[in-house]
């Protein structure tokens, strides 16, 4: 299928290494943040979320960190696998309104 992330920033990692994907958000009033994964030909898929009253949240192999002071969000993927190769987007919303996406980062995992 046609690639989603032809012109996006690319992060290339070795299989088994940890990955860190960063995102700067724009609205200081945003109170809910979501990381999505998008594979070619598919819609974005929910990975993990975090609310503004937290600064860290962990899932299975993924961790999201939120720094409200500098409006920065990061996604950490532990022991990156080839199946993690995709484009990753952060998204922000204020009270559930106007879910706004960032520009995205393409993750490439080398076997």
């Amino acid at each position, binding site marked *: 299928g*046609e690639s*989603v*992330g*032809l*012109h*996006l920033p690319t992060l290339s990692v070795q299989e088994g290494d940890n990955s860190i994907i960063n995102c700067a958000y724009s609205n200081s009033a945003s109170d*809910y943040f*979501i990381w*999505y994964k998008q594979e070619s*030909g*598919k*819609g*974005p*898929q*929910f990975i993990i*979320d975090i609310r503004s009253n937290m600064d860290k949240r962990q899932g299975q192999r993924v961790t999201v960190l939120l720094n409200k002071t500098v409006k920065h969000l990061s996604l950490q993927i532990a022991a990156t696998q080839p199946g993690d190769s995709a484009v990753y*987007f952060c*998204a922000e919303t204020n*009270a*559930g*309104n*106007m*879910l*706004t*996406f*960032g*520009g*995205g980062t393409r993750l490439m995992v080398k076997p």
Partner: protein
Amino acid sequence: EAGVAQSPRYKIIEKRQSVAFWCNPISGHATLYWYQQILGQGPKLLIQFQNNGVVDDSQLPKDRFSAERLKGVDSTLKIQPAKLEDSAVYLCASSRQGFEAFFGQGTRLTVV
């Protein structure tokens, strides 16, 4: 739980023609979004519905785009007339208020 359904999956039209996309959200989700995703970019919000009311349509090109959500369930997005720059994937998503949005597979539109 069934996901967000969209149709058609692909559509090719000539410029100045009209086209419509359909979305069936996840049952019980009051919030419905339409996004436009141009190749190599993140999804851009076109319109957000809460039940059958419009919450935000500030980025919807209203001279050619229209959307409705009758009875607060299914939704249609229409483009009339289409331009070359409308070529993109149109994504529909739904959510419970204040929770993560779930996306359909999208409709890939090519305007020639």
